[in-house]
Structure formats: structure tokens, C-alpha cells
């Protein structure tokens, strides 16, 4: 049997990948959209559904950024509601480790796991910025250099809380008058750099024991964190060679944490555009790119690099000849773009601007066309057969263990993939035709959670 592919579906996000101007684009808020999307993914036997998190609306130039889809419901809340209208698919959500407390987060995820019969997953992210902190009790309290420490302690603490009840603690024996075996199940006492908490965790052990842990992050610290404690890692490496390098690097780190090769699944994010022929697919992809990067969005992207107002620049003209403003660090409060992690991906803005200018001059492209070339690339473009072949090749050659698919239309953008690509993967024998297990851990081929401990005490 070939290596099995794992697939996740990312509900279209609040960025320009999501095309809201398409006639097929529906509500990003109403529950019916989430239900449609989740049921499509489940019909296609995906491993899990993924919802990102929102904590503050993005801003640019001191104003709320108004060009992208924006606004979203609370993601864990939606996942819990989706548990009522799905049966098998995993339910994964991002929960920030900075603007939440471990007891509350652990309780919510344990509840989600109970009320979905073992389908919960947590994408642990970390942030520190004052901008997001303005919506929360403690404000921008966390120094940047403590963000991974906070995330690690948050995760370790949540896992200790999940492990604080034995699996057979609740007996509910009416005749014997015994509901629990011990009078103080869930007892914990945790003292660390970020936390000083004690008492009893209120939720009995959930079906998965520990919900599935996901991590995203490409830095050295991020890779180590994932190798030490994640069950799956989201990456941006959706090109074959880069994917293989990343895959080998991260998998090689597992052994030193006493983990097996298959204990961590590597899942790059991927977009796709299909067509009946290769040329039709290419034309479809071109149209989607122009929808994703309208004239105003092209200017907005350029402003994120140039870090200044470019409203008088013509998006259909050349890339600006002047250099970006480099006096403000992207992490400082002074940068033009706020609440957008991807801005950091630009790296050195002057180098990026030079690169854009050279590309424009070399190929005679306008600013908008350059932005499309740089930011609007789709991972998979082709016939369903071509896309299925490519996905399978990635997995069979260890460039990934599967993909997190990001459709560009809500809520029906996944339908065509489910209908046309999944059956071809199933024909190859590399993707399930039925769910074999009931929990997300089983779908992902992960080991059961470690056995429990009766009393938890963590020292810094």
C-alpha cells in the first residue's frame, strides 16, 4: 500500500486569497457556510477541518483595512457547533497562547473533544504585539523574546491538565453510590515562568486524552517546538525540493525527543485551481489572480513593503522607483501595517523593492502584475488528474504527509476538489475511501495519548 495522504480543509480566511467578488462567494459568517464547507470536507473523507482565529481587525495607514474579506465568528465556538452536523471529521482551531489562560483553553478543548467524541485539535500560536493586546485585559504585556516560552509553557500546562484525570476515573456507579474513584481527581499545582496556578481541573479525561496539537512556524525555535510537542505542523513549503528539505530537517529532529518518524505529520498549505484542460486551468488561475489582487489590493501590498502611503501611485504603471521607508521595524507600532503576520515574510524591504522593480523592468510588468506574480501564485493548477498526480508525488517523495487545502471561494470552493480530485487519489490507493477510526488521532495515524498521571506538579 502506498504511503497514505492526509488532507485538511482550511475555511477561506480574512486575506486576499479569498475572493469575495466572485458571484459564487457567499457569507463568511453565517453558520450555513461553515456547515456546507465541513460537510463537503467530511464527504471527501478529509482528516480535519481547520479554522483560523481573529483577535483584532487589521489596519493599514491608521485605518481598518477594508479590501479583504473580514469579520469572523469565534473559531472554537463554530467548531463545537459543527460537531453537531458532522460525525467523523476532525475539528481544528487556532487558539493564541498569549491572550488566553491555560485553564480556560484546556477546558474548552477538552469540552470540544468530549462533545465531538474525540475530534478536537489545537493549533498553538504565539504573539506578543501591543496592537492585539489592546483588546485584552493584560494589553501588550508579553516581551517578544518570551513568546515561545509562553507557548511552550501554555502547551505543557494544558497537557498536564488533560492528563490530570485517569481515563477510568468516572465510574458513575449508582448502586454503589460512587461517581468517581478518587475525591480529588484533576489535582494540579503548576509553577513556571508564566503561570502559578493550582487546584483541580474540572473536566474528566476526554476521548482523545490529549487533543491533537498543531504548530505552525518556520523558525529554528518553531521547528524545535513542533518536533518536541506537536502532532502536525503547518508549513508554507509547497514546492517539491524545499518541501523535501523541510520535511527531512523536521523529521530528523524527532528522535532526540524520543518520538517516531510518523508521530509528526507535515502539512503544507496549498491553493488550487482546476480546469478540464491544462490551458483552461491556467486561464482560470489567471482570472482568480486578478480577482485576488485588484488595483487597490496591489497598492496595499506595495505599501506593506514600502511602509508608506502610495495612494497616488498607479497600480497599472511601473513599480515605484524610490526606496521603501526602512526606519520602522515591522514589529514596532510605527509600521504602516498592523495585525498582519505575513508582513514579516517580506524580509528586507529594500531588497524586495529592488527585486520587484527588476522583475517589472525585465518583463514589462505593471506594479499590479508584479504583485500578482509575487503573491498570487497558486500551488496546484491543472486538470484534476494532474493535481492528484502532483499531490501524490509530494507525499510519496517525502515532501509532505499531505496538504491543508485553502479554497478561494466560500463556502463552495472545496466542492470541485472533493468531487474531482479526491476520487483520483482514492484510485491510487493513497487516500482513504472510508474513515477507519472515529477520532482525529486515528485519522492521522498517531499514537494514543500518553497514559495519565494521578497528580500533576510542574516546577519551573
Amino acid at each position: 500500500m502506498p504511503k497514505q495522504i492526509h488532507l485538511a480543509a482550511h475555511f477561506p480566511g480574512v486575506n486576499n486569497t479569498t475572493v469575495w467578488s466572485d458571484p459564487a462567494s457567499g457569507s463568511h459568517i453565517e453558520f450555513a457556510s461553515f456547515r456546507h464547507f465541513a460537510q463537503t470536507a467530511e464527504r471527501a473523507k478529509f482528516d480535519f477541518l481547520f479554522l483560523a482565529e481573529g483577535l483584532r481587525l487589521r489596519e493599514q495607514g491608521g485605518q481598518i483595512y477594508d479590501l479583504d474579506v473580514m469579520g469572523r465568528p469565534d473559531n472554537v465556538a463554530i467548531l463545537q457547533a459543527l460537531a453537531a452536523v458532522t460525525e467523523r471529521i476532525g475539528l481544528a482551531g487556532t487558539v493564541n497562547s498569549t491572550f488566553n489562560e491555560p485553564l480556560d483553553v484546556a477546558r474548552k478543548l477538552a469540552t470540544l473533544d468530549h462533545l465531538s467524541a474525540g475530534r478536537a485539535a489545537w493549533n498553538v500560536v504565539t504573539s506578543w504585539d501591543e496592537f492585539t493586546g489592546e483588546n485584552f485585559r493584560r494589553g501588550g504585556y508579553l516581551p517578544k523574546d518570551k513568546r515561545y516560552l509562553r507557548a511552550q509553557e501554555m502547551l505543557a500546562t494544558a497537557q498536564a491538565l488533560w492528563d490530570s484525570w485517569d481515563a477510568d476515573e468516572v465510574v458513575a456507579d449508582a448502586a454503589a453510590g460512587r461517581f468517581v474513584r478518587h475525591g480529588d481527581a484533576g489535582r494540579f499545582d503548576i509553577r513556571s515562568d508564566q503561570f502559578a496556578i493550582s487546584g483541580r481541573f474540572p473536566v474528566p479525561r476526554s476521548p482523545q486524552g490529549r487533543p491533537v496539537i498543531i504548530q505552525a512556524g518556520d523558525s529554528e525555535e518553531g521547528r524545535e517546538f513542533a518536533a518536541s510537542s506537536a502532532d502536525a505542523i503547518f508549513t508554507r513549503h509547497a514546492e517539491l525540493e524545499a518541501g523535501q528539505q523541510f520535511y527531512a530537517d523536521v523529521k530528523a529532529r524527532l528522535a532526540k525527543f524520543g518520538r517516531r518518524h510518523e508521530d509528526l505529520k507535515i502539512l503544507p498549505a496549498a491553493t488550487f485551481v482546476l480546469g478540464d484542460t491544462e490551458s483552461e486551468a491556467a486561464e482560470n488561475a489567471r482570472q482568480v489572480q486578478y480577482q485576488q489582487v485588484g488595483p487597490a489590493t496591489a497598492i496595499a501590498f506595495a505599501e506593506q513593503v514600502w511602509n508608506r502611503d502610495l495612494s497616488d501611485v498607479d497600480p497599472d504603471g511601473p513599480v515605484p522607483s524610490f526606496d521603501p521607508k526602512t526606519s520602522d521595524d515591522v514589529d514596532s507600532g510605527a509600521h504602516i501595517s498592523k495585525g498582519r503576520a505575513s508582513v514579516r515574510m517580506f524580509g528586507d524591504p529594500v531588497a524586495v523593492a529592488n527585486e520587484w522593480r527588476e522583475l517589472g523592468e525585465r518583463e514589462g510588468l505593471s506594479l499590479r502584475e508584479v504583485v500578482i506574480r509575487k503573491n498570487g501564485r497558486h500551488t496546484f493548477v491543472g486538470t484534476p488528474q494532474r493535481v492528484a498526480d502532483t499531490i501524490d508525488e509530494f507525499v510519496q517523495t517525502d515532501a509532505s504527509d499531505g496538504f491543508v487545502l485553502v479554497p478561494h471561494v466560500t463556502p463552495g470552493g472545496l466542492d470541485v476538489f472533493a468531487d474531482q480530485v479526491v476520487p483520483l487519489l482514492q484510485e491510487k490507493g493513497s487516500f482513504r475511501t472510508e474513515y477507519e477510526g472515529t477520532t482525529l488521532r486515528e485519522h492521522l495515524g498517531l499514537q494514543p495519548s500518553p497514559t495519565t498521571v494521578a497528580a500533576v506538579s510542574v516546577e519551573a
Partner: protein
Amino acid sequence: MTLHLAVALDGTGWHPASWREPGARADELFTAGFWVDQVREAEAGLLDLVTLEDSFAIDTDRVDHVQGRLDAQLVALRVGPVTSRIGLVPTVIATHTEPFHVSTEIATLDYVTTGRAGVRVKVSSRADEYALFGRREADAESRESLFDEAADHIEVQRRLWDSWEDDAEIRDAATGRFVDREKLHYIDFEGAHFSVRGPSITPRPPQGQPLVTALAHVDVAYRLAARGADLVFVTPGGVGRDGPTGDAEAILAQVRAEEAAVGRAGDPLHVLGDLLVVLDDGADAARERLRRLDETDGAGGGPGLRSDARILTGTATDVADVLESWHGAGLAGARLRPAVTAHDLPRITRELVPELQRRGLFRTAYEADTLRGHFGLARPADRYARV
């Protein structure tokens, strides 16, 4: 005018021995089916709403009592898609939660249920609950300060719900703008315990303002309700931490006095009386049930039934009599706490409700689709909208 009827769900019921009763399904307490079936039973009885109790701490170390509970908001969200008319009102502990998170979670419940969300805001002064969070000292804060914080918590939730005007999403292809940012509003709340900038991440929910509720036994809590709630649960003939709470007339007078004192504008509070019910075919049988339950609990050294709300042992007719008298005294209705959910909830839906209907005191079909609608509350205008 008809009265409003709610049921307060807490585990297998409000009696500590309830989990040992036939049909209690205590072994399913942490599964979805347990909660779905209870709320569907309440909906079959045309009830206005169910509340879901919550606490971060475990109440007891007794092995013969239920221990552990699930997050009440998530229970409501799990039940939402498989019910259609009944209001869902989870408890939220203001003292230990982020108002921003709670606001978006309740707004999400409102989207999932297309307008049936409410929230019961609760204050925590329990030292064991503080220790679970480790951020503040339980005895460092006065009761007044905690209630003020809860009032701020409600204010932030409400401002965030209004922070997107209803028509903020414009999808204007000509200019490339998805929203009209003039219709998104910073709430800029500054309080003693927190400040919140806004706007919400979630657009204005279907009801505009989901229903805010509180349970109150004393002036400071009546004041909180008068400042921020739509609905208040009170305990006529009950006993609060400060002693007897008084009868329905006396409590109602206190509530109205607090409304006047805080200058409440708009709709007056709907006041519902809490009643813990032990029901059976006759009064003697009901008393015998309670005696037996207390004895079961006492055999292991348990305290038996203790309640801040009045305990009624009797028939559905007896409950109807109390509700009718409360109604005469000016209460809008009642929230019933079933001693044994498996036994007393069906008695409420299948005996009490028909009895109230015979008396012309309760609806014979749902007339509204939203929780606000059940209470005759209009969808409010957005506080930030320019007229």
C-alpha cells in the same frame, strides 16, 4: 398576559443524589447526546429558554457526588444546530474571562442559532477559582468591585456587538472595498479592571444584542442587573448569602428601585422567580421522593438538598399555583430548577406546561423565532449608527 418559563440545567439535576436516580444517565454526562436530549425536551414544552450552569472549580471532594463539568458555552453551541426555537443561555464567569472572547463567543452562538443566544453573567469570589487562574487574590477585592467589573464586562460585550453596524459589509466591487469602515467602530472602553479598543472581530449578531441575564439575591446584584441585563432571575422565598431574600413583591420593589437608582432607560428588566421543584403525582408522593433522595445522599454522609431558591415539593398544579401568584405579584415568569432532571423536567414539560396553558398563562406554540422575540423585545438600534 402570559408568563415566561425557563429551566435551569445543571448536571443530572439540582439534588446531589439526582445522578443515582433511574434514567439519570450519569455515565453520559460528558457526552453531547445527554445535553441535546434535555434541551429538546425543554423545547418540546415550548419553554422560553434553558440556562446552563457553569463554574471553573469543582464543588466537592465527595466521591458520591457528581464531579466535573463541561464548558457551558460549548454545550450550548453543540445543542444549537439541533434545536430550532428555544433560547440557549450559558453561564459565563465575568471575573475570570476576557470580555472580548465572551462577546464573540456569544455572538457566534447567536449566529449558530439564528437569534437564540443569551448569556448569564456570574461573579466569582471563590478562592479556589482564583487559584486556577493565579492572576488575582480572591480576598483583595470587595464585592462591590467585583460587581462593578461584571457590569463593565457586560458593557464591553454589548459595545462590541454593536461595533459593526448591520450594513457594514458592502462588497463594493467598483472600489474593491469589502466593508465600509465608517460603519465599524472602536469601542474604546476604559475601566478599572480592563480596557478594550475594538471593534469586534465578529459582525453584529442576528439579534443585535443577545439577551443578557443574571441571577441576583441582594441589592448589589439587582443593581448589576439593572445596569446591564435584560432579564434577572431572583429567589422569592429563598435564602441568599445575606439571609432571606423576601417575597416576590418585596424583591420586585427592590429591583425597580435599583432600576430607578441607576437611571435605567429602555425596557424594564424582565424578572423571573427561581423555584427548585420536586414533582410527583401528589404532594405526599413528592415529599416522599425528596425524603428518599435526601436519605440516599445522607447515607454516605451527604448534606441532602440545599438551595438558595425556594424548594417546592408537590404536583404540577402546585407549581402552577405558585407561578400564578408570582405572576399576580408582577413577576414575568419563572426559572425552574429540576431536582432530578430525568424525572422533573418531563413533569414540567408534560404536566406543568399543559396546566399553565389551561389557565391561559402560557403559549400553545412558539410565536417568535428569536430569544428576544420570546420576550417581546425588539431588535435594538445600533448605538453607533448615525440616524
